[in-house]
């Protein structure tokens, strides 16, 4: 349960967003992200976006997640 995964916001409807997490689409609570918009990069924890990250951090997280999954 304590895993955070980098994701990109695809669409937003009310308090929830559809996010792309490493190729998988999922619903996530988005209200904790101030002025969230489509295209934002976020960290998803237990179905909730907990932090906005920049594109460079998103790339780093993705690279590390991919490498760890291939070890």
């Amino acid at each position, binding site marked *: *349960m304590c895993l955070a995964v980098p994701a990109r916001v695809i669409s937003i409807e009310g308090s929830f967003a559809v996010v792309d997490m490493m190729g998988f689409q999922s619903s*996530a609570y988005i209200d*904790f992200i101030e002025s969230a918009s489509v295209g934002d990069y976020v960290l998803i*924890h237990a*179905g909730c976006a907990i932090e906005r990250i920049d594109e460079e951090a998103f790339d780093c997280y993705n*690279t*590390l997640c991919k490498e760890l999954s291939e070890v």
Partner: protein
Amino acid sequence: MCSFVLKDIVDVINKRVSQEIRIMEVCGTHTQAIARAGLSNVLDPRIELVSGPGCPVCVTTEDYIDAAIELLQQPNVLIATFGDMIRVKGSSKSLEDCMEMKTRIKVVYSPFRVLDIAEENPAKQTVFLAIGFETTAPLIAAIVKLALQKGIKNLFFLVGLKQMPTVLEKVLSAKDNKLDALICPGHVSVIMGSEYIICI
């Protein structure tokens, strides 16, 4: 593009090691990730990694599980929980041991799913096992807010939330902990700020 790769990070860490060092990974997920990726095998052998108290499931008390099982005895109750909790033992048994009531145990990955479960089962009382640290607490608060907005009245929480500094202070005050460093729980700092753990 990101220039970091895992090997580079391991090389940087190993080059900095000049003596034996004992590091505690506070979060249980760190322990799992380190084991799964085999990081102990590629890090300098002078780095000793020890598991910490930061897994909310592991630090769940027997009393809490007993209370959840007691609630489950009531036929109008559904228990919604993170999957990790199913096998945790109470004083005599775990939720997994309650086979006869298994259909009333709903495992969720996202806690927000409990809103759907409550709405889909209006004749039942859905109880979410709200465990976790500072990271989970705001999620629970958001669910309460959404439940109020939606007018859901059959959703309840068995609260077992904990605070990380209290737990870490206990570990660090132990006389023989012999710890040189902690790998702190990043999720907690995301919610509370990076100074929150440093103050310990």
